[in-house]
């Protein structure tokens, strides 16, 4: 039980990274980005491309660090993939959502456009890489460490937690300390007031997509390190991401972190009694319960 909770925290931290971006996009543009899960997929596969392609060609060695199952190639591929997916997210906004936004299309049309984008991304991944399950580094998994209380954990999983904490702290400092971070928070609070205070809304939107896309890519890669890669992985994350954002009050970044952990732990604990394939359904069930008893989420003061 304790072991499942620990695995739940690992899964939950990955969900948190995705949910933060989803929640930010919703907070600023007020639309449900159904392509967010597939941005995670894109991130994981861009990293795979870097590892098996350019980084191998220029001769980065395929050796691993001590107890971990990866080496320099992933370390280099990680930030590159985050930048690429941030670019993809901004590009999608420029060619799709911006046109809809400037025409005054409703949020439902925007969400539908995002649904279309999610299928386009997934089909692109399927066309290039096919539908098989793949690993970053084939071979045996490294032996797990034995922690007190009989918990087994792989060194990779500990590192995943550390990376998530580092990314979240950077995001926190960015939002609290920089001008752009303040502008983003102001826009999320009230877009019209932010606009008349001289904030460049389009720039804020661009940054929101960039950060959301980058974090989604990080989440996808970390999941790929922890488990494996599959073109449908992002779609399977969509329900947990939304459940986490709604639980933590959609639009609230710190809520999304807490929500992600709760959903991740709940999903892992459910495997004690249910088949693991039911994990998305568990997230969905939690979401329905929240919608019934507290639709504004745990940190929401008012109903939108």
């Amino acid at each position, binding site marked *: 039980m304790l072991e499942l909770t620990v695995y739940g925290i690992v899964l939950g931290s990955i969900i948190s990274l995705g949910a933060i971006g989803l929640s930010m996009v919703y907070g600023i543009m007020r639309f449900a980005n159904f392509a967010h899960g597939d941005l995670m997929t894109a991130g994981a596969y861009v990293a795979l491309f870097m590892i098996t392609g350019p980084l191998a060609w220029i001769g980065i060695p395929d050796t691993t660090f001590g107890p971990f199952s990866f080496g320099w190639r992933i370390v280099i591929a990680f930030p590159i993939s985050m930048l690429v997916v941030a670019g993809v997210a901004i590009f999608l906004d420029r060619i*799709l959502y911006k046109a809809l936004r400037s025409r005054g*299309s409703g949020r*439902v049309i925007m*969400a539908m*456009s995002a*649904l279309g984008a999610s299928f*386009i991304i997934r089909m692109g991944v399927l066309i290039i890489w*096919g539908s098989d399950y793949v690993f970053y580094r084939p071979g045996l998994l490294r032996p797990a460490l034995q922690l007190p209380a009989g918990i087994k954990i792989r060194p990779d999983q500990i590192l995943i937690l550390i990376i998530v904490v580092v990314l979240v702290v950077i995001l926190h400092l960015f939002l609290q300390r920089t001008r752009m971070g303040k502008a983003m928070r102001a826009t999320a609070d009230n877009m019209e007031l932010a606009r008349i205070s001289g904030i460049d809304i389009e720039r804020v939107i661009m940054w929101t997509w960039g950060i959301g896309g980058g974090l989604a890519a990080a989440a996808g890669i970390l999941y790929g390190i922890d488990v494996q890669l599959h073109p449908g992985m992002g779609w399977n994350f969509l*329900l947990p991401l939304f459940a986490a954002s709604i639980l933590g009050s959609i639009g609230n970044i710190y809520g999304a972190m807490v929500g992600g952990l709760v959903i991740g732990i709940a999903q892992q604990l459910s495997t004690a009694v249910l088949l693991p394939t039911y994990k998305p359904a568990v997230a969905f069930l939690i979401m329905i319960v929240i919608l019934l008893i507290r639709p504004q989420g745990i940190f929401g003061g008012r109903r939108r």
Partner: protein
Amino acid sequence: MSIGGLLGYLVSFAIMAGIYAVFCLGLNVQWGYTGLFNIGIAGFFCIGAYISALVTSPPPTGEYAEYVHQAFSFNMPFPVGLMAAAAACGFIAFLIGIPTLKLTEDYLAIATIGIAEAIRLIFNNEHWLANGPRGLVGLPQPLKDFFINFGLKPRDYNYIYLGIVIIALVIIYILIERAIRSPWGRVLRAIREDEVSASMSGKSIFNFKMQAFIFGAMVMGIGGALYAHFTIAISPEVFTPLYGTFIIWVMVMAGGSGNNKGVIIGAFVIWAIWTGTRFLTDFLPYTLKARAPYIRFLVIGILLEVILIMRPQGILGEEKRVSKLAE
């Protein structure tokens, strides 16, 4: 291809396009007229198909009984299967509607994705229910024995089935047209345009949304049942978000949401593009052939984005006046 073969191909094309047109009509009630954002059509598709299959099929006998598990099998006639499918989908819609129809439209969308995924997972994992991932095969087809006794060749049965699909489509079309042209239908459109003023006119937003959601879901259930008895073999992997939901949305957006004739045209046009691209992918190099379906879906996805940006009203656009008195 011989004339007979071509004709046979056109008939099965028309049957599938007609079945998709039924789904489009159901979605049009929910989205086109009421503004309900249901992206879990695959779930209703799946429930409709399975319920009708289970209700109409005889219990497995002999060797089959060892390999085929199904929760129940009533051996009922086809129309009972259709009605059971509609009733089951209506009930599911009612359950989904309770927590979500009072919230903003995106919550309904997320919840419908969730229910569609949950339904597919249940049919995939619960082997006792409907044979798990292997699904059900050899489903009964309406009037088949009757016509074969008259000397019809089994391969010509599709002509009969096309007739059945057309009759179902026409009945559903007339029903929806009448409903939309009634005062009830005008309330739905008022809610879609402006909930606050509709509610100030004393209309219960929640009740009307719920009725439209259930009505549309029941139509989708009939579509699912028609599909099951046409293909006579169903398994959970058919009801994915791509085949079960996304393509239907593209049909409705292409044809013109809020226009029943438009969405039927949309169903035939998009189904023609979808099946037509299969011929084009025959020219692909060998290595890409296995991935041809993905390329075809990519085309459909790009088509949706183009429609949303260039022509959001679709081919026909919405019919603005729907009252006989407003002429």
